[in-house]
């Protein structure tokens, strides 16, 4: 097995590369736009490529049997890179294409969602792009596996470990009372990597999409309280109603500032985290993902909840 990980410098991609290299040195090629010193140091085979530029793909794919598509980007870029990668993979004779999608394809649906549940009708631009990509993958003629991680937390996750931890420390999240009764569909980054490895290996996974989430999720309140306790954001703050209104108002200028910052190419400029209305709604969303398909066909060992909390805490504590 020779695996090309596209998007190898990303949050998930880089961890998949490391896991594959640890499992079988030399079996992985890191597909990235610029080489990374840590990969070079670890003796990882790096292929400089840009999936937005089809001309760079054939050499990266030469001799490759499996592809992991872990490229992140704007909605348009994700669709374009997926399309290019699929075409090049077909020509190169790739035998399995593992595509990283997202539960965002289900939008704001509630209740029990199965691996074959229909796409949401209220999805945002990100979710719509992910649906588009899935359709391309399914129609590619390649043997495919689609993985849809829930919210990925743990070491390296800024949105779901860094941001949540910061907001807890600032007293902007905490005990959300009735606004936090939704189910907390987090998945630890190590588990996503384990699922990707299983998706590369397991014959019975072919032609399937899998939702990756905690099979027995706690409520957001429970998670936020537990995480706050671990990181020392105590006594945990209980959010009054007026605070949500302030956040809602504050989210607008923060969004404007973020757009200006990005336009001015000042990505490094730190901005406060925003608690946008859609972010706030998430905590009340009653959705659960049926783990049967994952357990049956992908079967990897999941990290227990408490251990996941500890790892997230360790990373959060080390990164502040």
């Amino acid at each position, binding site marked *: 097995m020779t695996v090309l990980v596209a998007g190898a410098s990303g949050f998930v991609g880089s961890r998949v590369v490391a896991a594959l290299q640890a499992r079988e040195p030399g079996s992985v090629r890191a597909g990235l736009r610029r080489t990374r010193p840590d990969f070079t140091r670890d003796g990882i085979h790096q292929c400089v490529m840009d999936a937005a530029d089809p001309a760079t793909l054939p050499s990266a794919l030469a001799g490759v049997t499996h592809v992991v598509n872990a490229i992140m980007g704007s909605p348009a870029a994700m669709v374009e890179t997926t399309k290019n990668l699929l075409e090049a993979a077909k020509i190169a004779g790739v035998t399995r294409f593992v595509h990283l999608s997202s539960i965002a394809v289900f939008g704001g649906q509630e209740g029990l969602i199965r691996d074959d549940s229909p796409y949401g009708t209220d999805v945002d631009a990100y979710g719509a792009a992910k649906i588009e990509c899935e359709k391309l993958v399914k129609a590619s003629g390649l043997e495919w596996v689609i993985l849809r991680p829930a919210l990925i937390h743990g070491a390296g996750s800024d949105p779901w470990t860094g941001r949540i931890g910061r907001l807890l420390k600032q007293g902007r999240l905490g005990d959300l009372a009735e606004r936090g009764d939704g189910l907390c569909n987090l998945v630890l980054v190590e588990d996503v990597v384990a699922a990707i490895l299983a998706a590369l290996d397991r014959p019975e996974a072919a032609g399937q999409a899998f939702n990756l989430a905690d099979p027995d999720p706690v409520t957001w309140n429970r998670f936020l309280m537990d995480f706050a306790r671990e990181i020392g954001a105590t006594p945990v*703050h209980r959010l009054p109603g007026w605070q949500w209104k302030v956040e809602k108002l504050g989210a607008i200028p923060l969004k404007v500032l973020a757009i200006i910052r990005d336009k001015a190419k000042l990505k490094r400029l730190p901005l406060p985290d925003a608690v946008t209305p859609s972010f706030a709604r998430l905590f009340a969303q009653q959705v659960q993902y049926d783990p049967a398909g994952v357990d049956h066909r992908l079967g990897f060992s999941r990290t227990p909840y408490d251990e996941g909390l500890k790892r997230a805490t360790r990373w959060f504590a080390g990164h502040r």
Partner: protein
Amino acid sequence: MFEDCATASGLGGSTLRTTLCIVGAGPAGISLALQFIGTKTDVVLVAGGALDHETRTQQLYAGEVADEAMHSPLTEYRHRQFGGSSATWGGRCMPFDPIDFEARPWIEGARWPIAHEDIARFYPAASALAEIGDPVFDAREAIADGMREMAKGFAPKAFDLDRLERFSAPTNFGRRYGERLRRAPNIRVLLNAHAVEIEREAGSARIGRVKLRTLEGAEFSVAAERFVIATGGIETARLLLASRKDDATGIGNARDLVGRNYLCHIAGTMGRLTFTRPAAEIFHGYERAWDGTYCRRRMALRSEVQREKGIANIVMRLHHPRLPDPAHGRGILSAIFLAKPFISYEYSKRLHGGDAMSAGLVLRHAWNVLREPFGTAGFLANWARRRTLAARKFPSLIVAPRNNSFSLDIHAEQVPNPESRVTLASARDPFGQPQARVDWRYRPLDLETVRVALHALKDELARWGGGSLEFDEAEIPDAMLREGAYGGHHIGTARMGRSPEEGVVDADCKVFGTENLYLAGSATFPTSSQANPTLTIVASALRLAEHLQSRRESPAVQTGRAA
């Protein structure tokens, strides 16, 4: 699913059929209904009010009080709305003690048919619902680095200073859990539906239906396999007594027990506890557990002492000096005294006592405020931040006295008394049903408990040497009864017993003489404990839920047996 019966059409004359009908949507009814989410049992939860307070509905609580000096009007201290009186409670929670469940020969009628453990095993789940954090009520375990001592070095034998009270947000059960019920497909919440009568199936021990009315004039009913009445200590008695179609004296009242043993608590502030140790060694405030819960120590009279002295259960707290007496010299206490017109009836009654405001008194209090303007302003700013603007509210006024001299806030068990009663009044409500009449009575032992406990504390302080307690025994009746029955805790009117001679309901909370009528809430408690009742109300509702789920009666079998 929620349905507002005030605006629904086509209800008149209809019969809703369900498996379990819960009448009353306060902490008991809501906690019970929540346990059926995701089960196959269809539930109708009847709320005798709207989502919020409405004066017209609240007036349905109007009734008679035998002695207005001894009991607050029946429209106060309870809220007739979805969420019930949790819309107004202070949030103070602590478990009942093992001794509360024991037979105490020196207290007539103090006997439960169940043990402390039967209720205590539900305290963790009840604590979660009441949002009081971890179910830990011991000061040595509640807070990671330990809690501050009440008085450094004071370790009385007669009192346990490590017992805690923990405070709910205070959680309004309606707001907090309404959404969960709304989402549950098997639960139907009827708003503005007022239960007026419980009816048996002709000539049988089975209850067939509960008759409901709306203020708009609709009359309909719920037929169910099983019924739970969870309308609080006063309304539960009224509903049973008023259900006289098949039972001349009311359902469950064959032995004239319904409405008797109406218990509240014996409470008040008195005495003067002066510490001679430095003020820094005395602490009477709150500390917060990791989950944000406010916790506070109390002085709980140990059960050995209660047994030895033959008295009831009691706790005491260090308290700021009495507000109405301007001699306390604290600007903030005077400011609160002067703010009386802006404080709700329930709190004002506790804070201000019965004292009338005279011009001279106003001036002396105003002088206190003017004397320490920064202290008063700082306190108010802090109060605004930690209480008014906070979702988890700072529970009560904590003001350290100028001279290390505190009063004692006393909360004691009221012992059972069959002469303390809820009965039916002659006046009727808009549905033609008799209003409730409350004749609250206490016994000499109730005051004796306070007297003995005060002496015990006085002796302990003297032995320790770090402080002293002064009080006037003659002051006890006035201090404890200044406000009459301690408002809001309505207990015992349909008590649990081992037999129909001893109680209205059995150990499973089923009404004797019926096959399918259950009661939930403090009406079923045979004793009142020193504890505020809400946590135990929720715990006992969870216990009832477990019982109801452990066996589903099959109507066919029941009918067969009846025949």
